[in-house]
């Protein structure tokens, strides 16, 4: 019965992890930093468009965990959007395959300024294990100007959150970035 589950949830409180001790304390500090930074710079929210430009889908699995109740990304004002036209950030995974290169470039062109590109995962940095393949152009910077890299194969959800928060803080201190 769904009502029983809901009642239990009410009684036991949320399962979303509080932003306290490690690794949760990290999240708490970042949450506070984010709130201040994002408010100055962007208002309350940052819209993220995720793009897979050649990943094995490992990074997608961990990024998708951010939307669940444990990491609950939206409490930080971060949210995933369905169109690049609604996005502030492109969160890009994978090496850039030659076949995805045109679509990735077009997605970036469709994203309004100011915009940021975050390269997620070791492949996104320099092609990772696929470096040297005939089928890729390299890391994300072979197609787009990258603002931030988040390492890991795949990075943990905490590492991805950490990176997104660092991006906001850095940009809040800078004047508007030229395209």
């Amino acid at each position, binding site marked *: 019965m769904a009502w029983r589950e809901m009642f239990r949830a009410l009684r036991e409180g949320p399962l979303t992890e509080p932003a306290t001790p490690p690794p949760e304390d990290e999240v708490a500090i970042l949450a506070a930093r984010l709130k201040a930074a994002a408010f100055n710079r962007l208002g309350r929210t940052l819209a993220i468009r995720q793009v897979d430009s050649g990943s094995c889908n490992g990074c997608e699995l961990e990024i998708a965990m951010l939307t669940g109740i444990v990491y609950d990304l939206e409490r930080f004002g971060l949210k995933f959007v369905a169109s690049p036209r609604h996005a502030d950030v492109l969160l890009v995974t994978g090496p850039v395959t030659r076949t995805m290169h045109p679509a990735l470039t077009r997605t970036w062109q469709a994203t309004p300024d100011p915009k940021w590109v975050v390269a997620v995962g070791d492949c996104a940095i320099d092609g990772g294990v696929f470096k040297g393949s*005939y*089928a890729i152009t390299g890391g994300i910077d072979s197609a787009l100007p990258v603002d931030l890299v988040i390492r890991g194969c795949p990075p943990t959800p905490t590492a991805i959150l950490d990176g997104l928060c660092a991006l906001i803080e850095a940009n809040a201190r800078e004047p508007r970035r030229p395209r």
Partner: protein
Amino acid sequence: MTAHAILDTAAFVACAPFPRRVLDQSAWAEFAAALAATPALELLALWADPTHVHALLHDRDSADFLPVSVAVEIGLYPALSPTRPAAAWFERMIRDLWGHTAADGIDQRPWLDHGHWATTTPLAARPSPNLAAAEPAEFLTSEGEGLHQIAVGPVHAGIIEPGHFRFTCNGETIVRLEIRLGYLHKGTLGLLRGKSPRAAARFAARLSGDSTVAHAIAFAHAAEAACGVAAPPRATQLRGVMGEIERIANHLGDIGAIIGDASFAVLPARFGWHREAVLRAAARAFGHRLMMDAVIPGGLAEDLATEGARAILATVAAIEAELPGLVRIYDDTSSLADRLQSTGTLRPDLAERFAAGGFVGRASGRRFDARRIPGYAPYDRLDVTAVCLDQGDVDARVRVRLAEITESIRLLRLLLTELSDGPIALPLPMASGEGIGWSEGFRGDIWHWLRLEGGLITAAFLADPSWRQWPLLQAAIEGNIVADFPLCNKSFNCSYSGVDL
């Protein structure tokens, strides 16, 4: 002659554990035609090397697995696709990668090669430079009054892999779906060549990240078969543990996502919570949430951590305790029944014709499970139950996966309580030979083929179960409404990266 009689005339080439038969072109052509009258011979995979085209067949009646090859002559070989339509995507892939054309193949359009590579036929003995500009894709036509097309992708609206879906619709109803993949082609097969199996295992582990363990196991099996060695018992048992953890984690995540696509929030929250718990247990037990690179040819990279078994058992006990209540909610929610039942129905005859593996096959009456047949350690001693339904709709695929979670928990307990002592890996000799390896990933049966010379890979193919499931999604979606496509797609959850190679 019957297909079996033709096979009996073939010469054998050493390939462990299934000797490979080689037919000449006329015998292969006759064999391809005879397949029409032999539905029990299922096509599991079709691939190539610079000189030959290879098929892996399964005889449903005798439970034999038969690799069969044909030499390519002046760039041609007789097609299997007229009698085995599942061969069509493989034939298109073979032409793009090796340049061998399936004469009389039912579809001659390019597949992986969208015209953006620097060379054409990159795996051929002599690839040629790509001088032509990329051309727009050609799609199959649908004719009739009031039809319109919806083009989706390659960049999708969610957090998923890229691919292009071309829907032809009449109002809300989908008349035809054509899927175009290849966007994630990373040249994996080319990268395997010239490497030792140990070094190459990193690529097998990244063919499809959600099946990293299952692909690493199949790859290790192929390498071990080619070298004539077997991984130590503790390694195979822990591989089984990792494989079942991966299955549970994927089932939990996908069931939650399917129900989430039907806009019912309570269950995805709970399933997502348990998925996270499983990933954390995996990280504690094996040092990595997805257990990437933990399985290597010869055994394991690292042993189970001291507290690992306890972490896993505690996590699955919590799932087991809550699952019946969650299933009750699923059963009692009429809006879910309305959305999921009789949606995206895959007919059993189609599942059989395409030899659909995993929960896609088992929700449509095809019971095949590579843990049972041909089987592999540690499952040879465990008597795995394959849950099988025949409704073939989204609901049936969810129910098969729910039942598989329970079964995997049972297997995990057995494996962890009877864990052998001893080494976790042995070195592979610098051998020459050919091997086929397999495993049952959460999606279904995975098949890897390797040829080694002096301990280095000279040719390889890694077959994800999605090759035989994607085409069926195209069939299952017909007559459904566009708004139900996400549900249907998620309920199949085929791998993009896994087939893009």
